[in-house]
């Protein structure tokens, strides 16, 4: 995988309020941070949707964002690859440091950010006019991968990593939309992987899928986290508990905006939540 130059000095800074110090002793070496989110706020016009969120996403981990509907978790994750700015009158304040650079700094091109921070969406969105292979290869031209053999190699590698290769290898020319829902989502994952990002953001990737497909993708997430950093938004707590290493819990505050309530290793958050609101949510008292 590509190297991420990291500053260890960033470790331990800007932790979520209420979180405990650096976890159990098993994390002996200081963890690399893929993203350092600092006091991030996001607006839709005059409506504040996310307020002052700070957290550090650990590299090669799965981090889950959970919370009830409307708590801003989708808005937040879309700020990580500068997709939020497509909403009308969208605005962001604060910083998101990736590889030591604030992706919102003036002069940073979102096009380049998105090549390194990929995204998979809630509803699978393969391109209907393209075949399976063409879908996976869609982003390769932005990297200058031209030769047929190089493209074919990367398509196969991506489909293998997305656990889809065996199912489609005999018919790569089939239209992307001819697959089942779960397969389409894995196709979209393969498409995102093919450009070799460092982080893959997933916005409720399983909510449109049946349970069998869901489990396949959850397994996939764990495997993928060895090579990539995964951040997922999910409204399914059990999924977060199954899949993630760290979990962030968000809630809509009285100002109508989403706040980060707690951000801890998943085990800790679900067994010993330090905030009562977290506890109420995970025990199902609301949500």
């Amino acid at each position: 995988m590509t190297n991420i130059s990291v500053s260890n000095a960033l470790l331990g800074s800007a932790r979520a309020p209420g979180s405990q110090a650096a976890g159990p002793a098993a994390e002996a070496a200081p963890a690399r941070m893929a993203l350092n989110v600092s006091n991030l706020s996001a607006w839709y016009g005059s409506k504040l949707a996310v307020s002052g969120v700070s957290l550090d996403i650990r590299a090669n981990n799965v981090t889950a964002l959970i919370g009830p509907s409307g708590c801003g978790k989708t808005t937040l994750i879309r700020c990580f690859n500068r997709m939020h700015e497509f909403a009308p009158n969208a605005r962001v304040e604060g910083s998101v440091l990736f590889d030591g650079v604030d992706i919102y700094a003036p002069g940073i091109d979102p096009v380049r950010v998105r090549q390194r921070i990929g995204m998979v969406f809630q509803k699978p969105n393969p391109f209907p006019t393209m075949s399976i292979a063409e879908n996976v290869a869609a982003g390769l031209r932005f990297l200058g991968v031209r030769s047929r053999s190089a493209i074919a190699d990367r398509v196969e590698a991506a489909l293998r990593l997305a656990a889809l290769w065996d199912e489609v290898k005999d018919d790569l020319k089939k239209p992307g939309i001819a697959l089942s829902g779960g397969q389409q989502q894995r196709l979209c994952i393969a498409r995102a992987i093919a450009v070799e990002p460092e982080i893959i953001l997933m916005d409720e990737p399983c909510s449109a899928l049946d349970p069998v497909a869901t489990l396949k993708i959850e397994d996939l997430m764990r495997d993928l986290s060895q090579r990539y950093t995964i951040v997922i938004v999910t409204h399914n707590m059990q999924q977060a508990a199954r899949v993630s290493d760290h979990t962030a819990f968000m809630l809509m505050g009285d100002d109508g905006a989403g706040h980060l309530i707690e951000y801890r290793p998943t085990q800790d958050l679900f067994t010993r939540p330090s905030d009562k609101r977290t506890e109420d949510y995970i025990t199902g008292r609301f949500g």
Partner: protein
Amino acid sequence: MTARPAAFGAHGPEALYRRRKLVNHAMTAAMVVAVVIALLPLFFILFYLLKNGLSGLSLDLITEDPNHPGRSGGGVRNAIVGSSIMVGLAVAIGVPVAIGTGIFLSEYGQNRAGAMIRFVIEVMAGIPSITIGLFVYSVVVATQKHFSGFAGGLALAVILVPIVARITEEMLLLVPRSLREASYALGAPRWRTVIRIVLPTAMPGIITGVMLGLSRIAGEAAPLLFTSLGNQFYSTDINSAMDSLPTRIFTYATGPYDYWHDQAWAMSLILVGIILVISLAVRALFGSRVTVRQ
């Protein structure tokens, strides 16, 4: 200890990235150029309409009838009146048929028969208006052995019906189900529901449709060439040839006299002015939902 922003993201060759950005900027520029090209004719048409037409406008123009060809001065009163009469005739003949068709399609049209009628309406909306003029010529003018304002009005009506029928159906379908159901629940029969409840609710939209259709047929010349023909003299007799603004503009534009050209510009200004006013009124009443196009 932040890396220089410019070095960020060397993911793929730098040269490729620069070329991609260049292409992106070039295409954005191309789009802007296209918009300018698309708007230029509009501005030039409006500009010349005002420049050449304003000077020709005068009270005489609308109160006098044309002089003998060659003698400058005179006006186009017969054309204005003729147009008004024939458009009025078209509305009187065409709107009832169109509204009836619209009602039929919205109430009873969710089936094959309805699909066929809608198809026919689409086809009618698309055929050249000169063809309609020829048709009315064959059926009315040839039989009566003379041109007439009535034939002209009829031809305009045939053009008007598809436009108004389409909009009527659309407006009627927009009336919420709940309104219809409330009426049925009170025991009202279908016809009463439509006439007393649905139609009045949709009426503003339907009137909009009529106005749009009106502005369209007011400018039509092709269907009138062989039906009402045109008339040097003032006439309100729909049984004889009748003049109209579009046909007179056509005659004057191709004619040899300068004062004819001047008056053609002035008439065009009047015509476009009326159409613009209707278009703006429609937009003010109904937002951008309904437009002047076909």
